[in-house]
């Protein structure tokens, strides 16, 4: 899998800094899961965080900080046992809904609640995702059949898309499995699923999409996009 479209550095900086909001951070994390290039950059940016931490001017702690830390350790050890704690094993999550053959379900979506597939047009389905700690995040899965296209639209806010399976072409470029896209108000596009099977995308919609056609806009409003 050759990944050609990556999140811009400012996304990776904000992931490293821990300041990217839930929905966007889920999209970027899903990308990172499959992209060694971006993981490599993230590690660099985390190292930047480490150096900045080392160089920051130390602040004064409360006088009892040390004692309270020890008490906390005591308390934790009495409840959960000794210090050496194995990392929680990450069971590879089973997909909560039917997927095209050969598609794997990203671990990053492990904790999301996922609705069933809803019909939104011939060959087009969507599902809603919700994150436990950010239930308001507008997260969707789109499953579009080969040759089908989403209605032409532009965006109020930023629309992030991570391709999980298959590929689409929106006139700007072809986006294949593993690719990431950020589309803002400057992008007016009509994604068409290219040959080679169904396309499944994870999408986060900041603001709302503005569909050109009235019927498309009605459907968009109805499904919450």
């Amino acid at each position, binding site marked *: 899998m050759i990944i050609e479209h990556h999140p811009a550095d400012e996304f990776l900086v904000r992931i490293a800094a821990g300041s990217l909001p839930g929905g966007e951070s889920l999209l970027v994390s899903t990308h990172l899961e499959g992209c060694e290039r971006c993981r490599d950059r993230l590690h660099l940016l985390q190292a930047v965080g480490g150096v900045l931490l080392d160089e920051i001017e130390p602040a004064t702690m409360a006088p009892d900080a040390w004692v309270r830390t*020890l008490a906390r350790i005591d308390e934790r050890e009495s409840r959960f046992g000794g210090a050496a704690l194995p*990392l929680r094993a990450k069971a590879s999550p089973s997909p909560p809904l039917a997927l095209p053959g050969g598609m794997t379900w990203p671990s990053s979506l492990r904790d999301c609640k996922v609705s069933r597939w809803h019909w939104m047009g011939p060959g087009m389905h969507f599902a809603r995702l919700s994150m436990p700690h950010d239930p308001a995040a507008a997260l969707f899965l789109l499953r579009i059949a080969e040759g089908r296209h989403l209605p032409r639209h532009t965006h109020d806010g930023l629309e992030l898309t991570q391709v999980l399976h298959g590929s689409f072409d929106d006139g700007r470029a072809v986006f294949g499995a593993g690719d990431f896209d950020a589309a803002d108000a400057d992008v007016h596009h009509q994604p068409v699923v290219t040959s080679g099977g169904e396309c499944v995308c994870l999408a986060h919609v900041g603001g709302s999409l503005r569909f050109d056609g009235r019927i498309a806009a009605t459907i968009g409003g109805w499904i919450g996009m």
Partner: protein
Amino acid sequence: MRPGVMPHADPPPVAMRTNKMERARHRMAGPAARPARTGTSHVGVASVTSAHRMPTTDELNQWMRAVATSSDRLAFAALFRHFAPRLMSYLRRCGSPDAQAEELVQETMVILWRRAVTFDPAKAQLSTWLFTVARNVRISHLRRLAAGEAPAASADPCDQWDADLQAADQALGPHDQLLAAQRERGVRRALSVLPADQARVLQLSYFEEQSHARIAEELGIPLGTVKSRIRLAVAQLRRLLDGFDS
């Protein structure tokens, strides 16, 4: 916001080296408690006593190993003295009120203690590892607050901090691991030669919990400029690191 800075504040009291927490706490209860040399076999004890010198990477790693392999509280105290005031400063600058920042520093240090065994100096510098721990502790805390949950009583918070945040961090290929150690040595050098405007934007991104739009406002530059400076900074860092390697 500028954190209250007292570079010569007393180092935190240091526990005697013992595995019995109760005894440790009794002995260090007095304000005059200071680290004791408990024997030459002990890793890094001598350096624990020099309070105001920046510990070397090797010392930090040795202390961490001592915590991991023998629950060494003196080594933990040394790590606490170095990192806790820096974590405090970091968390305040991210916008945590003092009481919350104190809590989060304590929690971060508890995770350092309980998770020391998972730290691998071949993969990351300790300060980088701890930065990601503190960042995740902070995010988890804010998420729980937003969801109106009390801090979990039933689960070990150590298990939670990484459950949903570490997926991306952990998938290190062998290629990454090889590069990590040398890369991180170069980062400090690279950061120090970054043009001031790029370094400033980068620093604000990490420490002030500001959206890039807010940073643009504060610096009086367009949002696009913030983004392009970040791109330039990252590209420059990468270029400098490549240069150091060769």
